[in-house]
């Protein structure tokens, strides 16, 4: 059930955008020598050599539907943004591609049609992408999420955003909005990424409300709306008045929360339309700038051995490229005082502070990050505990 589609070339208007982007690119190039410049080079400058250069066709592979109001739609929006920046390239998309050899087949088909750059946007595609990278040395494989054990092939990478930073900020909004001091979190699986989000949410809320607790339910499925509904109802009836989640499909929990006249903090996308009254804010993907930056880096022939040719992560503190995760617009009930608290916290993170700055205690009261210390990249990427204040347990 793989649908290969071709995104139409941009309208003439975009030529103007291209011209503007070109000018902006020149200015940016003049101002910074940072390899990962935010401006987009859409075509290889004369003589640029290396994997992925002279790309006229770019492929995007998604695990779910491009219209899921979630993770995959956000990636597809990034593809659209890239098309806008580079109207002359042809973008091929394949969605609902399982994390199996189907991914290899979809990629091979795209390479057969001339694709030089493949965005492999699902966590579980990694091994297939690495395998393809060994076979097609002239094609660059960009793997969204996951981790390639070094050495990273010179024509591949992984990239992701520090999602927990926005989740922490959204936690501040939740900590301020709650009246019962009970927040609810509908999670799927206890993987490090999810535990990070739960912890960041609780820590953000605690930073403005020391009494607040986050009640967590794992559903054991990325998208089982029936189970999401019962998780949301259990949380709501136990008194939780702000619900958030880490699920692939998000509408069921948000709608159940709105129906109960409680507050929602979203994930993946701006779902304010589903909760006109209870929407606080949320974490929203914004892949366009990073996709553009990586593409132009490839076209300028600097990818191999360059800034992106690694397990690349970036957050708010990144200056050259905006973080791929941003805070969604605020709902009507968020007070100005809350907004300014969030703005202050965001500034601190921009200046290099981490939401995971010690002392951080786990549920049993054991110190996980010492006082005054920042959690290391390894502590972040291998998180295996829930912080004090989270109610719920990690299945063993």
């Amino acid at each position, binding site marked *: 059930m793989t649908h290969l589609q071709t995104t139409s070339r941009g309208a003439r208007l975009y030529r103007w955008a291209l011209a503007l982007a070109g000018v902006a690119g020149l200015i940016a190039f003049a101002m910074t020598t940072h390899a990962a410049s935010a401006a987009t080079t859409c075509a290889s400058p004369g003589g640029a050599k290396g994997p992925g250069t002279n790309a006229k066709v770019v492929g995007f592979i998604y695990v779910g539907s491009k219209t899921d109001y979630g993770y995959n739609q956000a990636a597809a929006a990034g593809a659209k943004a890239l098309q806008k920046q580079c109207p002359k390239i042809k973008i091929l998309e394949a969605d609902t591609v399982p994390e199996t050899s189907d991914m290899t087949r979809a990629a091979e088909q795209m390479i057969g049609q001339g694709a030089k750059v493949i965005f492999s946007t699902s966590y579980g595609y990694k091994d297939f992408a690495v395998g393809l990278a060994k076979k097609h040395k002239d094609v660059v494989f960009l793997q969204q999420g996951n981790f390639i054990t070094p050495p990273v092939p010179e024509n591949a990478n992984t990239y992701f955003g520090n999602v927990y930073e926005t989740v922490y900020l959204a936690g501040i909004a939740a900590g301020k909005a709650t009246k019962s001091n009970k927040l*609810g979190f509908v999670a799927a699986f206890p993987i490090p990424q999810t535990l990070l989000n739960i912890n960041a949410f609780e820590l953000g809320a605690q930073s403005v409300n020391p009494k607040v607790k986050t009640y967590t339910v794992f*559903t*054991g499925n990325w998208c089982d709306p029936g189970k999401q509904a019962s998780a949301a109802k259990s949380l709501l*009836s*136990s008194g939780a008045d702000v619900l958030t989640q880490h699920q692939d499909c*998000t509408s069921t929990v948000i709608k159940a929360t709105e129906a109960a006249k409680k507050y929602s903090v979203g994930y993946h996308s701006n779902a304010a339309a589903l909760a006109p009254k209870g929407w606080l804010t949320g974490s929203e993907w914004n892949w366009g700038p990073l996709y553009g930056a990586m593409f132009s880096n490839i076209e300028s022939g600097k990818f191999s051995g360059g800034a992106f040719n690694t397990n690349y992560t970036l957050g708010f503190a990144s200056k050259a490229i905006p973080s791929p995760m941003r805070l969604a617009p605020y709902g009507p009930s968020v007070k100005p005082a809350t907004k300014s608290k969030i703005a202050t916290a965001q500034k601190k993170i921009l200046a290099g502070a981490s939401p995971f700055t010690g002392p951080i205690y786990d549920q049993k009261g054991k110190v996980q990050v010492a006082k005054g210390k920042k959690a290391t990249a390894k502590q972040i990427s291998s998180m295996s505990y829930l912080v004090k204040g989270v109610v719920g347990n990690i299945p063993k």
Partner: protein
Amino acid sequence: MLITILAGAVAGGTSILYAALGETISERAGVINVGTEGTMLVGALASVAVTVETGNAWLGVLAGAGAGAALAGVFAIVTIWRGGNQLAAGLALMFLALGLTSLYGASYVGGNVDGFDEVKLPLLGSLPVLGKVLFRHDVLVYISYAVVPAVWWLLFRSRWGLLLRTAGERPETLLAYGVSPARVRTVAVITGGAFAGVGGAQLALALALSWSEGMTAGRGFIAVALVIFGAWRPLQVMAGAYLFGASITLGSVLQVNGVEVNQFFLDALPYVLTIVVLVVLVRRQRQYAPEALGQPL
């Protein structure tokens, strides 16, 4: 906590209840449709598609019933009129439905569906305990309260029910009586399919308010097992559906209350329960099952 589990049992059990009632009707006439999982999925997708396109959730429920009936109609043609094996045909149709719904449902995944909201019934909804457990649900739950006794009456007190049960016990008697057992079975199977379709519609339009591929997540199979558990009697089937609904809800309620349990075990509970039911109640199955169940005419 107990009230939450019981209320969740009713909310989560209703989609299974509709499907199991449909299966009861079908099996009482002598036809096992193990493809109920697929029938529910088709009903769920049709109900979401029609609700999104027309903005009317009632039309969505009708579409769900219609789609379920149509798929069951195909099953009836294969098994009753062409003599195909019931188990094989049921499984084949289920996989067909799984594939078709994920193909044609892709554009509805995660989208906004304006389905049925919870309605607190006046007076009844304010009753202590019972009000919270039974009378603060969506309208399809309330309809199911009336449908259960109606199905019982139809099966055990009406002439139609007598013919239907005869088709499941001694189809040859019907022939002597001048009624075609094949026709009776066909009507029963299609009715059963419509019920399963409504079950899917309740799951998508009332419980989840969304569509995603494979969203029935085994509820159709539970429904088939439940009919044995309920000894082919609507009231017992209802009790069983709520028991399964409770086991689905239990996991999240216990986690919310900080009880240290492994939720992956709890997730497996409904299916463990299904297996236990099938194993323990084998004797019951022999005792209560319609005599000509699963037998071609």
